[in-house]
């Protein structure tokens, strides 16, 4: 705190006043480009979306938006489509957690003692899905899981099983999309856990071992608690963004079907906005989503502060 702002530490009532105001202005000059972009393309649109959510508008340049009050919200809340989409959004999130948090945590704990070139090779390989473009992942998995000729179903057939309509069966399609979304994340999460695990002070584990703790006890009582900030961070990310990450796969692979079984709230907004051209419904849904996820974010952050164990 020793370097307070020059602007406020300057004597004020002097003839150099114009220069002082200029100086007070200086940080804003640096902030201007970034803030301008965020205000013009994020915050103002957020307010405009809020406003639009009270109107009926088909987005055609010549048509006038018509004020409808809370109708969009009331209609949405009573719509079976919306209810289904909300349920699906929860399913995406819950389905993703084992892939983005559970499996990576277990793998990181099991493989912590690996060292040397083998470990580097594994790290290099498991990270690859993270940098593969989502649409490329969609195309590749669409091919692997193709009903007639995809490798997965050819293997199933050769072992005498029935083929699975991974993207065509309403009971399966959502989980297929969860899997593709999770496939991109497993390696990345594993590396995050491995990094956090290797940062644990080895003297704790040594001390526990001296006291006769088994390796399971060490995992349960020392390593997992000290990994809790990473566990919570990844869970928070998954809860907040999981349904958004799935959007590409819904749009590219199922179009929300079959029988709307893969539509989540983000896809619903997209459909209302750019397929049926009802800006009011789309933005009203957007406001509800923003509100709910905002609350979830606050709760999660509070939980993180409370639950995380820090080594300090």
């Amino acid at each position, binding site marked *: 705190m020793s*370097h*307070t*702002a*020059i*602007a*406020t530490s300057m004597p004020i009532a002097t003839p150099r006043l114009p220069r002082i105001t200029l100086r007070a202005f*200086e*940080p*804003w000059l*640096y*902030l201007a*480009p*970034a803030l301008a*972009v*965020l205000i*013009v*393309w994020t*915050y103002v*649109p*957020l307010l*405009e*979306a809020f406003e639009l959510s009270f109107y009926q508008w088909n*987005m055609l*340049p010549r048509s006038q938006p018509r004020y409808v009050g809370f109708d969009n919200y009331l209609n949405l809340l009573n719509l079976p489509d919306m209810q289904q989409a909300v349920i699906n959004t929860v399913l995406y999130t819950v389905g993703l957690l084992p892939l983005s948090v559970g499996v990576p945590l277990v*793998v990181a704990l*099991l*493989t912590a*003692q*690996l060292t040397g070139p083998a*470990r580097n090779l*594994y*790290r*290099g390989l498991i*990270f*690859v899905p*993270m*940098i593969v*473009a*989502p*649409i*490329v992942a969609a*195309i*590749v998995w669409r*091919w692997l899981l193709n009903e007639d*000729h995809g490798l997965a179903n050819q293997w199933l057939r050769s072992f005498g099983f029935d083929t699975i309509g991974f993207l065509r069966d309403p009971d399966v399609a959502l989980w297929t999309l969860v899997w593709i979304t999770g*496939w991109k994340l497993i390696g990345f999460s594993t*590396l995050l856990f491995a990094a956090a695990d290797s940062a644990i002070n080895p003297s704790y584990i040594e001390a526990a071992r001296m006291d006769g703790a088994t390796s399971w006890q060490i995992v349960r009582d020392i390593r997992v608690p000290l990994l809790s900030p990473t566990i919570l*961070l990844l869970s928070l990310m998954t809860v907040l963004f999981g349904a*958004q990450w799935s*959007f590409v796969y819904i749009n*590219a692979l199922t179009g929300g079907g079959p029988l709307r079984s893969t539509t989540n709230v*983000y896809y619903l*907004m997209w459909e209302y906005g750019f397929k049926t051209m009802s*800006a009011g419904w*789309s*933005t009203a849904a*957007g*406001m509800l989503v*923003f509100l709910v*996820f905002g609350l979830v974010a606050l709760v999660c952050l509070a939980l993180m502060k409370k639950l995380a164990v820090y080594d300090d």
Partner: protein
Amino acid sequence: MTTSPNTRRFAAHLVMIGLSALAIFPVYWMVQTSFRPESEVFSTALWPATPTLENYRRVIEVMPIFGILWNTVLMAAATTAAQVVTGLLAAWALVRWRFPGGRLAHSLIALSWLVPFQVVMIPNYVLATRLGLLDTIAGLVVPNAAAAFAVLVLYNAMRGFPREVVEAARMDGAGSLRTLIEVVIPNLRAPIASVSILCFISAWNEYFWPLLLIRKIENSVVQIGLQFFMSQEGNDWGLLMAAATLASLPILLIYLVLQRQVVESFMKSGIR
């Protein structure tokens, strides 16, 4: 209860081999399918018996793939440059001065990642249309010219920069911009490189905004090109895999060369 260290190391290798295979196999399958002649596409053999470049020749024929790749390079490079520059400037303002409104600016930037793009897409689309940005590369860059994570990562990097050096520069009469350019930036090469890598990869992989903005295939970027392609040539797998391989090649090459930096930059700045 006690398993020998060797058994455990063996198990660890097994787990990692399994996970590596899971991660890499789909990518491998894409590449090898792209080299298969039409007669072999449905074979389950692990590699093509008679590899061919035929699929690549056809991709070039049916789709202006090089133009699209060039658009994508332009878009990703411009987005990266813009995000790094706006990020450096904003981070410098927040580190160099303590001023009224500074915390507000900081939280406005940090909280922007909480706003899902789908919530603001309609106003954004309307604005882009009004500004004549529809179907242009500039339209892909401008709304993404600043990124919260770039500001925040550079802010954290600058905060670790020794105060005394900055002070010394000021004593020498250097203005704040000269201090930033001549003193701070040269010493922040590693974080700047790391942010650039991340910006470039995420711009390259960007899907949603181009999907809204781009109409004509010759103006499109590679992700949208692939999407068009998939809906047109749906089950021509050799062709699709060749296009997908071409689209991934630049990123995979970057990864091959800069693997450690790529992994580290992702781990430092979280998932987005």
